[in-house]
């Protein structure tokens, strides 16, 4: 069933919509959640909560042309929240590692929190990522949006982990320069 038809089920309040979306995207959403949470049970709950939020937000949203991205955003948000809530007894999890890496992109003192207009920042990030070669853009998104581990990114792209680390390092440095140029130097 295509995305438009699934969204139509949501709009009709037909519970079959959840069955369809689970069958079509459930595995990928679980994989995304599991990349962040490193816990299959928690990832399943995250997937289930995604369906609940989708049920509650369609309508008014009608993501016919990008249903997966719509769902994946919800899953990612829920998983990152859950990841932070859970007190890790052992070493820092994926959230902390990704945060630490992205700190390198932030101009100025990262100790100073500031209210950043999310929409404007997203536009700047989008502009920067669109300026990158396709391979680098893909690598950045897999690492920081889909929260894949470095070995997973390397395997997915058929390259070495060293190349992934080096490329991401350069992309982060480039992002930092771009943010400075756009006036995000705090």
């Amino acid at each position, binding site marked *: 069933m295509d995305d438009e038809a699934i969204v139509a089920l949501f709009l009709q309040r037909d519970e079959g919509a959840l069955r369809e979306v689970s069958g079509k995207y459930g595995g990928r959403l679980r994989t995304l959640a599991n990349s962040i949470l490193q816990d299959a*049970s928690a990832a399943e709950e995250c997937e*289930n909560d995604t369906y609940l939020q989708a049920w509650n937000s369609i309508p008014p949203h009608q993501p016919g042309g990008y249903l997966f*991205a719509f769902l*994946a955003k919800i899953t990612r948000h829920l998983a990152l929240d859950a990841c932070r809530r859970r007190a890790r007894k052992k070493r820092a999890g994926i959230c902390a590692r990704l945060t630490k890496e992205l700190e390198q992109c932030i101009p100025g003192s990262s100790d100073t929190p500031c209210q950043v207009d999310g929409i404007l920042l997203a536009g700047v990030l989008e502009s920067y990522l669109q300026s990158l070669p396709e391979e680098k853009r893909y690598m950045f998104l897999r690492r920081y949006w889909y929260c894949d581990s470095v070995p997973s990114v390397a395997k*997915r792209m058929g390259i070495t982990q060293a190349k992934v680390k080096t490329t991401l390092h350069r992309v982060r440095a480039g992002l930092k320069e771009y943010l400075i140029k756009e006036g995000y130097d705090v």
Partner: protein
Amino acid sequence: MRGQELLDKLELLSPELIQSAAGDPPGAEETKGQRRRGLFWSFMGGCAAGAVCLSLALLPLFLGQGDSVEPGGSSAAPLAGTPSPSPSPSPSPKAPGIEPVYVEWMPDLPLEKYFAHEEQETDREKLQKLPRTFFGYDEGESRSFSSRQEELEEEGDIPSIDSAWDFTCHAWYDSGSTPKSLSVRWEWYEVSDQIANMNTEEIGVQIAGRSNFISPESYIRLNRTVVRRDGTEITVLGQMDSQKFFVFQKDGAWRLIRATAGVPQEMLLQVLDHFFQHPADFRNFSKEAGDIYEWAELETCPEAFAGYYPQQKDSELVPPLAGAEVLLLNGEPVRIQCVYDSDTVTGTLLQWTVYKETPDNQPDPISRLRAAGDLHDFSQESISWYFQQVPAGTGRNIIYFTWDGYRVEAQFAEKASPEDVIWPILETMREQSRAWGLSSRWSKAYGDMEAGKAPVDPAVSMAVFPKIREEYFFGDLRDATLESVEAYLSRPEIRESGRFYFTWEGYYAYAQLSPAAEATELYGFIARVRGE
């Protein structure tokens, strides 16, 4: 702006950009050694993925010339976190007729120089006398650190080895929290054109802080070469075209590095160099920080992998379970191995194993290459085709597949027909896993529940999964009493989870639980579900 904020703001990227990275990478193509899924055999033919298995074994090394064993020449203090430096090892017996040849180390010393002075084939008898510690095993309680590869690389405890298929790391303990030895291993698999054969290449590293780990009579020199580097003597065992061992003592710790014949030279030298210069910090391997694996009978954890292995009630083709064991990782099930009574129902299912993969819990590597795909994609035709492709004599009655993120190995009797036995059993398992319990009956029963009371929006909250969080499981609603509900809600972890997990009419389900939910409210909800 903090890194966390940037991580969060990424979710505002456009859907087009997000979806552009959802699938395969740009210019994706199968690379040699890459794992494949689907209903095709993965013919990697001759892919020589050398695996470097670095085994640093804590083994007193037979070093030095004559009858004296010279400890490492470094005068540095013992490594942080390592056990106290051991006294000099006792003099090792000198093998008759063998005199050491010393080679002075220099940067870029090629690997051939380490084995330049071997004169004869390594005595296999002597190799067999080597203790288990040469091969990465020790006595005592152990813990796994295999899931910490990235962290260990960042800490500098281990080198970054790209392209390894598998990585494992274990620590062994006597009493106390600090390990007595560590073992690290990287593995690769070389696949032949026949698919039937798969060779494992590996590097293993073992480190320990004791020098009397091996009894003196086990000191055996199998080679003549001793490489001197910065005052430390590295004894070399083995040959260039076979298994190799490098043993040395430095900064109070013994290190043994072992590599199989096919390991690339530069990789082995990289590992040797790393552990010479950067020994692991034992403080990073405390017992409390490690993972525990242990086996349990299914009876002690009956919910483990429920719904993911066939039972007799599922199909008349399925024999009764003769036994089932569950592997627990820190108390969580990560594998179940089921054996079926093939005398009761003959010619069908023999064994069924489900893996929730972890670095230390992997199915046989051949299963990745022979994976038939995902259970949800199977058809009778695809199953028939799969078994037609299996070469004779290579386990024609075993099928490997994935299922909801798990890996499954199912072994059927040799005469089990793919069309009449195997496919019906697989189809039954698949159809059961697709059961979706949202029902109009529930929406009708609870549509008038006041918002804010438990549960919230019950019709949709009670989404159904075939598996459930065991630690929060209430039980079946048929058996609920007000007292059992009170006892359930009195558990702090239940309040913290905000979930109410239960079974009803054969379905697993959970509902959101409001923080202020009272036992009487929840029991009232249960009564409504039961139609009271």
